[in-house]
C-alpha cells in the first residue's frame, strides 16, 4: 500500500465533515431557535420589552429562577452526598441503588408528574399533601434533576487520589475538615458542571411541573407554563419573548459553568 500524503487528505476532510456537522446543527437546532428569536422581536424592541415586563411574566420568571436555584443548591448537597456514599461506602444492594439514580432520567416527565401527584396529592398514601404548592413544584424538580450532580461527581470522586486525605487524617484532621479542604476543591469542576445542567433542566421543565404545580399565576406558575399559556392565547410574540429570556438565562449559565473548566 503506497503511503499517501497524509496531511492534504485530512485537511480535505475537515471542510466536508465540518460542513455536514454545521448543516445538521443548523437545521436541527439553530434554525428553530432563530425562528423563535425572530418572532420575539416581531414587533420591535419595544414590544419585546413590554411582553417581557408583563407582571405575570415577571412573576413566572422570578419563580422559575428562584425555585431552580434552590433545587440546584439542594442537588449540590444531596448529589455530592449520594455520590460519596456510592463511591466510598460498601453495603448490600449498592449496585441496585446505583442504578436507581438514573431512573428519573429514563422516566418520561409526564409519568414522573403523574406519580408525584399520586404520591403527594390530596389522597397521599404517605400523608404528605404538597401538590399545588411551591413545595410540590420543588419536589418535581428535585426528582427530574437528581442524576445530574451525582453522575458528574461520581467519576471524579473515583479518580481522586486518596493519599492526601490519608496524610491529612494522619496529621489529625477530622473527616469533615479533610473533606472540605482536600476533597471538595477537587470536586468543584464536576459539581459545577453537574449543577449547571441540573439548573438548565429545571428552568425549562414542563411535563412534570404542569401537573403538580397547580399553575396558579403569580404563585406556582413557572416560565414554561406561562409560555404555554401565551401560545394558547395567540400571543405568540409574548411567548417567544419570554422563551428568549429563559433561553438566555440557561445559555449564560452553561457558558459560565463551561469556563470553570468542565470535563
Amino acid at each position, binding site marked *: 500500500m503506497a503511503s*499517501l500524503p497524509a496531511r492534504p487528505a*485530512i485537511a480535505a*476532510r*475537515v471542510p466536508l*465533515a*465540518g460542513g455536514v456537522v454545521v448543516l*445538521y*446543527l443548523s437545521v*436541527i*437546532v*439553530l*434554525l*428553530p*431557535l432563530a*425562528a*423563535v428569536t425572530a418572532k420575539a422581536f416581531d414587533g420591535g424592541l419595544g414590544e419585546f420589552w413590554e411582553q417581557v415586563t408583563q407582571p405575570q411574566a415577571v412573576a413566572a420568571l422570578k419563580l422559575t429562577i428562584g425555585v431552580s436555584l434552590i433545587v440546584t443548591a439542594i442537588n449540590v448537597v*444531596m448529589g455530592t*452526598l*449520594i455520590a*460519596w*456514599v*456510592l463511591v466510598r*461506602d460498601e*453495603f448490600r444492594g449498592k*449496585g441496585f*441503588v*446505583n*442504578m436507581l*439514580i*438514573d*431512573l*428519573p*432520567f*429514563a*422516566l*418520561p*416527565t*409526564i*409519568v*414522573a408528574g*403523574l406519580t408525584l401527584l*399520586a404520591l403527594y396529592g390530596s389522597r397521599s398514601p*404517605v400523608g404528605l399533601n404538597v401538590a399545588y404548592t411551591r413545595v410540590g413544584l420543588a419536589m418535581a424538580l428535585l*426528582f427530574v434533576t437528581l442524576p445530574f450532580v451525582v453522575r458528574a461527581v461520581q467519576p471524579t470522586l473515583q479518580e481522586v487520589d486518596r493519599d492526601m486525605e490519608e496524610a491529612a487524617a494522619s496529621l489529625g484532621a477530622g473527616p469533615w475538615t479533610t473533606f472540605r479542604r482536600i476533597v471538595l476543591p477537587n470536586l468543584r469542576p464536576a459539581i459545577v458542571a453537574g449543577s449547571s445542567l441540573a439548573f*438548565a*433542566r429545571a*428552568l*425549562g421543565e414542563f*411535563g412534570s411541573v404542569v401537573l403538580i404545580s397547580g399553575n396558579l399565576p403569580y404563585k406556582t406558575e413557572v*416560565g414554561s407554563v406561562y*409560555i404555554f399559556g401565551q*401560545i394558547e392565547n395567540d400571543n405568540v410574540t409574548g*411567548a*417567544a419573548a419570554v*422563551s428568549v429570556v429563559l*433561553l438566555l438565562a*440557561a445559555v449564560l*449559565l*452553561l457558558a459560565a459553568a463551561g469556563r470553570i473548566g468542565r*470535563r
Partner: protein
Amino acid sequence: MKALRFTALGYLAALILVPVGVIFYRTFERGVDAAWHSVTTPEAQHAFWLTLLMVVIAVPLNTLFGVTTALLLERRRFRGKSVLNSLIDLPFAVSPVVVGLALILLYGRTGWFGDWFADHGIRIIFSVPGMVLATIFVCLPFVVREVQPVLREIGTEQEEAARTLGASPAQTFWRITLPAIRLGVGYGVVLSTARALGEFGAVAVVSGHISGVTETATLRVQDRFESFDPVGAYSASVVLALMGAAVLLTMNILERRRRKVA
C-alpha cells in the same frame, strides 16, 4: 459514614423508590388482565411502535452527528471551534414547549418553510417528521458529550502511530479510534435513547393528537389519564418504565465496563 449512608438512602427511597412503587401498584390495582389488555389495544400498540420509531430514527442520526462532531472538536483545529462547542449544549437549555413553538414557526402553515413543504405535499408538523425533528433536537448533545472526554483521554499517540505506519485516515478511524471510544459511544446512545423514549413536551405541541397516528406512548399516558382510565395510563407508564429500566441496565453494564477499563 453510616449516617451519610442512611441520609442518602432515605432521600433516594423517598424521592424515587416510592413513586415507582406507586406506578406499579396503580397499574395492577384492577388485576393483571386489565393492565395487559390496556397495553395491547391497537391504539396502545401503535403508540409504542411510534415511540420506538422516534428512537430508531433520532438516535442513529444523532450518533453519526455525535461521533463526527466529537472528532472534529477533539482532533482538529479550525476557526469557530469554541463557538461550535458551546452550541452543542443548546438543547439542554431549551424548554420543550419552546421547541414545539419553534418547529411550528418554521414548518407550520404560516411558517418560514410552510408553503414550500405544502407545495411539495410533505407534511412536517402534525405528522411523524415534525415529531422526529423534535426528538432529534432534545437528544442531540448526548453522544458528543460522552465521546469527547474519551477522545481527550485516549490521546492521539496510537492514531499518529497508525498514520506513520501508512494507514489512511479512514483505516485509522475504524481500526484505532472507534474501538477506543466504543464505550463512550455506547453510553451516549443509551442516554439519547432514554431521552427520546421519554420526550413529551415538544412532541405534544407538534403532534396534532391524531388518534392512532401521531400519538406516542408518552402522549398516550396523558390521554388515558385524562379519559379517566388510570389503569391505561399507569400500564403504559410501566411499559415505558420497563424500557427505561432496560436502558438503565445497559447504562449500568457499560458504566462497570468503563470503570474496569479506566
